[in-house]
């Protein structure tokens, strides 16, 4: 068997090489953490468009009216409003090594929940992600839907949580498949 072993190992190595997908090898199975701090925020209040839309709209009389409770809650964050956030992204929790920026563009739907599109501009490429968010301090889990450069074909998820160690810092945990 001693003489057979190298042959079998070589065959296994060759088979493994063939089976590994050529694409997404750079990002597959990666998990990493970045740290982010907000630099700008803008809330867009579309109260006028909402009110106009309730009167002038393309629906017929059978269409559902927006239930009053759908837009209840704290001031702002009603259906159709937007929130934009810009963040600096760092590789270390002390926020000393800047590696890129991130932008979250969120449109509120109902019950103070928004759908957010996130764009991460990093040194060696970009990633985009999308998903729902409460924007009230709870963790946000977005699905990573693609990327460029080092992150081309990236798929997975990114979880954003508030840092317990440093106020105002978001911990971005990327898990790529």
């Amino acid at each position, binding site marked *: 068997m001693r003489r057979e072993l190298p*042959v079998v190992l070589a065959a296994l190595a060759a088979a493994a090489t*063939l089976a590994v997908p050529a694409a997404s090898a750079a990002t597959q199975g990666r998990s990493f953490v970045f740290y982010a701090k907000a630099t700008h925020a803008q809330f867009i209040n*579309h109260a006028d468009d909402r009110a106009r839309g309730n009167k*002038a709209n393309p629906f017929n009389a059978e269409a559902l009216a927006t239930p009053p409770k759908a837009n209840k809650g704290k001031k702002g964050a009603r259906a159709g409003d937007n929130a934009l956030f810009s963040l600096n992204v760092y590789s270390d929790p002390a926020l000393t090594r800047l590696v890129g920026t991130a932008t979250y563009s969120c449109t509120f739907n109902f019950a103070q929940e928004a759908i957010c599109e996130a764009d991460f501009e990093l040194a060696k490429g970009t990633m985009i992600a999308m998903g729902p968010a409460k924007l009230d301090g709870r963790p946000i*889990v977005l699905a990573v839907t693609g990327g460029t450069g080092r992150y081309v074909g990236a798929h997975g998820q990114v979880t954003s949580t508030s840092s317990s160690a440093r106020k105002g810092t978001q911990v971005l945990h990327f898990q790529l498949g």
Partner: protein
Amino acid sequence: MSRTIAGRFLFAAVLLLAAALPATASAASKKLTVYAVPATVQFMNHADDRLRGMSTNPFNFKAEAVILGAKGKEKGNGPFPGDDILYAFKLFSDAKRTKPSGTAMFTCYYEFKKRATCDSYFDLANGLVLASGQVPFGATHFTLAVTGGTKAYFGALGQVDSVPAAGNAQRFDLRVTGTQK
């Protein structure tokens, strides 16, 4: 090489190939059907923003490119470019709609000819599925591309086919591939 060695060689290679195939292949084509009932809708009429955008903008638009009529009024009730509609759905796993299975949210941003780009998410018990695509206003048959997901749908790809169902409901057939967990 003896026949025994060759046999082992092939067996080992086949075993390794099977193990090394990406997870996407092993979890391919998961199909899920849900029945959706509209729960809430909000139309956002951006007529004032359109009007403001015609006089103040970074482009050099030609007069014929604008959608307003000669008297400064929009024709019909839209939806016009820039309007958006938000839809919330309750989801059920059965056609009789007795077994709740989650919620879905559509955010549709209108472009021209009453066509919208819609971003949606299906919030299911075992994870989120995201889907995006073009939907003409009022269409009941449309197809969206699945662009990702979380938890059980981590890394999902595929498509969602939408067709009408009984009782003012909509049936969504989710064909999801590429899940990796």
